[in-house]
C-alpha cells in the first residue's frame, strides 16, 4: 500500500560520485528496495480481487477468520523465512508442530502434572530437535533437504507410534480438566473481542514474531550473520561469522515457532490428532518465497513472509466466501499463488530498475 504510491515519485538521480554505501537514500527509494515490496502489492491485489468477488469477504468477522488462518501459517513462515535467508530448508517444520502438541499433551496427561510442565517439556524438546537438525547439517555438510527429510519422516512415525503406544488410540486424551489448562489457554488460544468481533490470540503471536525477527535481521549482529551465511557460507566463515552457531540457532527458531503453533493446536482443541501436519511445511516455504525470500538464500525478509502468509490465508478463505466449487479449490489456490508470485517478481524487477 505504502510502496505503490511512491513508485512514481522515485526518478531522482542518484549521486554516483560519492561512495554509494554512505549515500543517504530517501524513504520512498528505501521502501522500493525492500524484498517484501512485491508481496505487499500481491496481497493488495488479492484483497481487492476478493473484495469484489465475494460479498461477505469484507465483513469484520470474515476478516478475523482470514487473519486467523493467515496467522497459523504466518507464525511458522517467519522462522522458515529466516532459515531460507540463511540458505537452508526445514521439511520437518510441518510435523514438528504436531509433535510439539503431542508431547505437551501426553506428558501432562501421563505424569498427571500441571499442564505448564508439559508445555515446558514440549519447548525443550522442539528446541532440541532444532539443535539436532542444525547439528547434523553442519556436521555432515549434507544438503538440508536430505537431513530434514529424514527428520520429517522420523517425526511422522514417532508421532503416530508414540501416540498409539501411550494413549492406545491415534489421538491424545483431553487435558481440558487439568490444572493450568485455563491459564495456558489464555496465552495460546484465547480470543480478544474488539468491536463485537473475536480475534484469535495467534494474530498477536504472529505480529510479535514478525517484529522480533525483523529487529534481529535488520538491527543486530546475528541478523548480519544470517544474511552472510545464506549469501556465501565460505566467505562468511572466512570473515569470522560463527556459521555453525548461526545455523543451529535458525533451526532452534523453527523449533520455537513450532512450539507456539503446537501449543495453540493443543489448547484450542484439547486433544491432538497424531497424523496431522504433513504437507504444511511446503505451505510455510511457499509463504516465505512469496514474501520475497530467495530459495538460494542471502535475501529476504520476515515482514515479507507475513504478507505471503496473508496472501495464502486470503486466497484459501476467499474461495469459500466467493462460493466457488470446492472441486476446483486447489487449482484456484495454485493459480492465485502463481499470479501473486509473478506480480511480486515483476514489481521487484521494476523497483530494481528504477533504483
Amino acid at each position, binding site marked *: 500500500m505504502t510502496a505503490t504510491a511512491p513508485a512514481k515519485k522515485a526518478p531522482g538521480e542518484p549521486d554516483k560520485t560519492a561512495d554509494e554505501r554512505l549515500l543517504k537514500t530517501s524513504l520512498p527509494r528505501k521502501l522500493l528496495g525492500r524484498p517484501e515490496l512485491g508481496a505487499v502489492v500481491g496481497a493488495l491485489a488479492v484483497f481487492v480481487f476478493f473484495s469484489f468477488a465475494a460479498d461477505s469477504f469484507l465483513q469484520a468477522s470474515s476478516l478475523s*477468520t482470514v487473519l486467523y488462518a493467515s496467522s*497459523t501459517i504466518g507464525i511458522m513462515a517467519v522462522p522458515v523465512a529466516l532459515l531460507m535467508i540463511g540458505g537452508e530448508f526445514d521439511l520437518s517444520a510441518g510435523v514438528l508442530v504436531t509433535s510439539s502438541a503431542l508431547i505437551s499433551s501426553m506428558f501432562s496427561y501421563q505424569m498427571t502434572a500441571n499442564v505448564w510442565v508439559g508445555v515446558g517439556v514440549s519447548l525443550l524438546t522442539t528446541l532440541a530437535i532444532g539443535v539436532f537438525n542444525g547439528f547434523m547439517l553442519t556436521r555432515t555438510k549434507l544438503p538440508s533437504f536430505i537431513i530434514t527429510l529424514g527428520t520429517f519422516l522420523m517425526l511422522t512415525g514417532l508421532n503416530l507410534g508414540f501416540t498409539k503406544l501411550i494413549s492406545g488410540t491415534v489421538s491424545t486424551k*483431553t487435558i481440558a480438566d487439568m490444572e493450568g489448562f485455563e491459564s495456558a489457554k489464555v496465552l495460546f488460544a484465547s480470543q480478544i473481542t474488539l468491536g463485537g468481533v473475536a480475534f484469535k490470540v495467534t494474530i498477536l503471536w504472529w505480529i510479535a514474531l514478525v517484529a522480533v525477527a525483523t529487529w534481529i535481521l535488520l538491527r543486530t549482529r546475528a541478523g548480519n550473520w544470517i544474511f552472510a551465511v545464506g549469501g556465501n557460507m565460505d566467505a562468511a566463515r572466512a570473515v569470522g561469522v560463527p556459521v555453525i552457531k548461526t545455523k543451529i540457532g535458525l533451526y532452534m527458531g523453527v523449533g520455537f515457532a513450532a512450539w507456539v503453533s503446537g501449543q495453540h493446536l493443543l489448547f484450542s*482443541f484439547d486433544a491432538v490428532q497424531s497424523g*496431522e501436519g504433513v504437507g504444511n511445511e511446503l505451505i510455510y516455504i511457499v509463504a516465505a518465497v512469496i514474501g520475497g525470500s530467495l530459495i538460494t538464500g542471502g535475501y529476504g525478509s520476515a515482514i515479507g513472509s507475513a504478507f505471503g502468509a496473508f496472501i495464502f490465508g486470503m486466497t484459501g*478463505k476467499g474461495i469459500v466466501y466467493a*462460493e466457488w466449487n470446492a472441486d476446483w*479449490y486447489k487449482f484456484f489456490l495454485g493459480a492465485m499463488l502463481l499470479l501473486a508470485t509473478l506480480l511480486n517478481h515483476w514489481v521487484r524487477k521494476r523497483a530494481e530498475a528504477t533504483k
Partner: protein
Amino acid sequence: MTEDEGHPVTEDEGRSVTEDGRHPVTPLPAPLIGVTDTGAFGAGRRSAPRHHPAVQREGHDFVARVRTWAGIALAAVLGIALTGCSSTGGKRAEDARKAQAQGRAAVDTPRWTIGMVTHSGDGDTFWDIVRKGAEQAAVKDNINFLYANHDEGKEQAQLVDSYIDKKVDGLIVTLAKPDAMKAALARARKAGIPVITVNSGSAESKEFGALAHIGQDEEIAGEAVGEELNKRGRKKALCVLHEQGNVGHEQRCAGAKKTFDGTMQNLYVDGTNMPDVQSGISAKLQSDSAIDTVVTLGAPFADTAVKAKEDAGSKAEIDTFDLNAKVAAGLKSRALGFAVDQQPYLQGYEAVDLLWLYKFNADVLGGGRPVLTGPEIVTEKDAGRLEEFAKRGTR
C-alpha cells in the same frame, strides 16, 4: 431458481433417451467442434509461413513449429473424437442414466443457503456420493447448496467459521475430529444456525448442540462384519486399514474382531499409493497362507485386494466396507464375498432434507439419537440391482 429452470429434463424425457437409444446430444457439439477445429488448425498454418523464412531467429522458428504441431495434434484428437464414436458405455450412456436424477424444485420456500463441510480428502469417491445425495435434495428443496472439505481438523473448523461468516441458513458437518470442531459448532449455535452432523461423530453430536446425527456407527458396522464372517465359516481374517490414524477405521476393525470367532489381524497400508496397498496385501497373504478372508475398509481397495490375492496365489475371500460400481460388479461375479454399505447418498440427502424440514416445519428426526443409515450387508443377490445405481454414482 434460474438454474433449475435451465434444465427442464423431466423423468419421462430422460427415459425416452435411453429407450430409443439415439444421441440427442450429437447435433449440438458437431458444429461447435468444427469451429474450434479449423480455428486451431488455421492459427497453426497462419503463423508458420510468417516465421519459417527467418531461419536465423531459431526461437521463433521453434515456437512456430510447436504451434503447427500443436494445431495438428488438436485437430487429430478432435477428429478422432468426432468419428470414432462408441455405441456402448461412455459419457453418453452416463448422461442418459443421469438425466433421471435431475429435476426442479418441488417446493416454493425461500431459497435458503446450506453449507456442508466434511473431513474428506480431495477426490474421494465416497464423499462424492454423499455430495450427490445432498445436491439432489437441494434441487428438490430449492436450496443453495455449498460444499467444502479438508482432511485436517483445524482447517475444517476454519471452513465452518467461513460459512458462519457467510450467515448460511443451515450447516452440515462431519465430526471425524470432534475436538477440533467443538468451538466452531459453539459459534454456529450462538449465531442461531441449525447444525446436522453426518457420518462420524454420533457420540458428540448431541453434546455439541446438533439437531440430529445421520450416519453409521462404525463399531456396529464392524460387529455386523464379524457376524457375517462367522456365518460364512471363516477362520483367519485380515483387516486392511488404508489410513493410519483414522479413528473410524480402528473402530471398524475392533468391532469385527469383537464378534468374529476366528482370529483377526490388522494390516496397515498407505491408501494414497495403490501399488503399495497391493504389494502389502499380497506380501501378507504369501507369508501366511492360513488367511482365508481379507476385509478392506473402502470400496476402491477391494478391487486391489482381489489383484493382490491373485498375485499371491491365495484362495482368500475378499470382503469390503462400502460400495461402488466395481464392488457391485465384483459381488455379481463372486470375486467378492459381501460388502457392508452405509448408504452415503442417504447421509447427504437426509441431512439437507432434514434441515429443510426444520426450517419449514421445525421437524427433527431421531429423537436425540443417531439416525442410522447402515450397516447393510450386500451380497451377490442384491448386486445386480445395485450395480446400476452404483454406476450412476448414487450407491
